[in-house]
């Protein structure tokens, strides 16, 4: 009852209603008053009676509606505008500032969500995923799952591919596609279909590419003809918030439950710890050329990456490992404390555990060795890197077999390996056989 008298909104509306009614009644009685001037008093009385009736009616109405009305007015007054669609708040419909919040345009054009709403959605998603025992996996397209080339970039030696393209009526069984309307050809990486099928059982998958939206959609159709894996989770470069950078701000998932598969480290500078760097897939000659490699591409060599032994298969093993580590923890351990990044680090640290590595003339002398890419890779893999040789050293990494340290390694029967051994181990998530990476006299790579 106190609400009824205290709420300012309520009292002003009742004034309006009463005065509105009065005004209406006044015009109707004034029409007839021309004939009945003597009945002014009566009119006044009737007005007063009507006003009282109106007030009585109102009080009755108010008892029923006051709580409802006050609540809605309070709701409108305190609506937090957690998101907007086409410039209007999604809860109350009022206009909101156009640039507020993050644009989630890949789901639908014009949709924007505020930070608190994003946090709420991510938390809700986390609970859902823990129940389903799934994590999130973000996949890059180019050079990770497939390789595309424009038709006019293809060399004459690659013409045989045009006639060998797989049918677009039977996408599920094909891997090389000719897309006339986009004037390009696409080759899917070997093992990709099996990879997607198995990853789908452990992860909710997203596509995040630096291509434009139509390209992203076409590729999603080739990878996922049944529309089971990605749904609307296809993020293209038009949907990112920063140019040339990919970010998890437009992804509706907790950062601690996201793994990223990409061939470019620079695109994910803010989320390096979630990233699993993939070896680039170069099928077409234009792709090799783009990256400055003078070697022959797979299409010219008429061969392809190994199916069961290639990059995707190795990464799948790692993903299975991290997934099982995440969900097979002691049930007493709170799930919200688990972080997929920690598990990734620990899986990586096991690969070269126990190795002690010395580098010989691999880094320029003025350069601090600890900041070199190879040093960091080796440490991430669990090895210990040293500057000077001693008896505990297990590997010497060199380009030249005639350096002091290289000769020392051969004399002491330690492993003498090419720097590519570290890179291969890093990309394939498995300690590579040292004998396959000998250090040769030849300078060409």
């Amino acid at each position: 009852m106190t609400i009824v008298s205290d709420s300012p909104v309520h009292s002003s509306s009742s004034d309006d209603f009463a005065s509105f009614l009065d005004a209406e009644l006044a015009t109707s009685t004034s029409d007839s008053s021309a004939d009945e001037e003597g009945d002014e008093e009566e009119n006044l009385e009737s007005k007063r009676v009507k006003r009282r009736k109106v007030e009585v009616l109102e009080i009755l109405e108010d008892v029923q509606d006051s709580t409802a009305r006050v609540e809605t007015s309070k709701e409108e007054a305190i609506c937090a505008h957690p998101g907007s669609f086409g410039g209007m708040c999604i809860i109350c419909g009022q206009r909101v500032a156009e640039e507020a919040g993050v644009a989630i345009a890949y789901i639908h054009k014009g949709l924007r969500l505020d930070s608190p709403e994003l946090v709420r959605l991510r938390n809700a998603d986390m609970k859902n995923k823990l129940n389903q025992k799934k994590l999130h996996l973000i996949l890059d397209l180019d050079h990770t799952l497939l390789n595309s080339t424009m038709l006019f970039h293809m060399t004459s030696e690659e013409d045989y591919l045009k006639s060998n393209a797989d049918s677009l009526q039977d996408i599920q069984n094909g891997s090389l596609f000719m897309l006339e309307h986009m004037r390009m050809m696409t080759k899917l990486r070997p093992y990709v279909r099996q990879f997607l099928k198995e990853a789908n059982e452990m992860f909710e998958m997203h596509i995040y590419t630096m291509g434009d939206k139509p390209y992203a959609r076409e590729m999603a159709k080739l990878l996922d003809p049944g529309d089971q894996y990605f749904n609307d989770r296809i993020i293209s470069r038009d949907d990112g918030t920063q140019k040339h950078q990919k970010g998890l701000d437009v992804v509706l998932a907790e950062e601690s439950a996201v793994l990223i598969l990409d061939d470019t480290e620079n695109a994910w500078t803010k989320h390096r710890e979630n990233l699993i760097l993939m070896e680039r897939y170069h099928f077409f000659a234009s792709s090799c050329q783009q990256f400055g490699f003078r070697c022959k591409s797979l299409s010219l060599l008429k061969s392809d990456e190994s199916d069961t032994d290639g990059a995707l298969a190795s990464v799948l093993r790692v993903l299975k490992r991290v997934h099982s580590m995440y969900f097979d923890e002691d049930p007493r351990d709170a799930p919200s404390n688990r972080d997929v990044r920690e598990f990734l680090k620990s899986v990586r640290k096991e690969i070269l555990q126990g190795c002690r590595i010395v580098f010989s003339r691999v880094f320029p002398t003025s350069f601090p060795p600890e900041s070199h890419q190879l040093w960091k890779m080796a440490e991430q893999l669990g090895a210990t890197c040293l500057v000077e040789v001693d008896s505990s050293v297990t590997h010497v990494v060199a380009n030249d077999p005639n350096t002091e340290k290289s000769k020392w390694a051969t004399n002491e029967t330690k492993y003498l390996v090419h720097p590519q051994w570290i890179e291969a181990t890093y990309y394939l998530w498995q300690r590579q056989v040292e004998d396959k990476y000998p250090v040769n006299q030849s300078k060409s790579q």
Partner: protein
Amino acid sequence: MFFHITLERNMQLHPRHFGRNLRENLIAKLMKDVEGTCSGRHGFVVAITGIENVGKGLIRDGTGFVTFPVKYRCVVFRPFKGQILEAVVTMVNKMGFFAEAGPVQIFVSNHLIPDDMEFQSGDMPNYTTSDGSVKIQKDSEVRLKLIGTRVDATEIFCIGTIKDDFLGVINDPTTA
């Protein structure tokens, strides 16, 4: 809501279209220009039903184009705040669902979906009541109330709710 109104427009015509078929050319150009467009005031022009009159043409200085003021009758569609509308669901996700009623795109946030309906993800994401009796998924027909509308040059965006009485699924596509 649909309205049948008279609008006026100045049509510019290139002299190559003059001749016996001037009027037909003018009307064809009008239809091409106007049908399917949106204006903030009138909403979406669905179809032109007839030409009321075509005024005298004025030759523009400098160019040879001639401007004709044309008055025409057309059917327009304009949604209003507070209107009840039936729409077809096009996309369902954890934030709510998107529905379409002709050219109008409507978003119903999950805050404005009754609390007893929960989001189920999967092959066919949907919102279902706890006993499974009511289900909102792609291609369902729903009756909703508009709580905000915005019209721009080519599209109309609306925010809707189904949290009131008598709103919600009309027709379940799985049983249809």
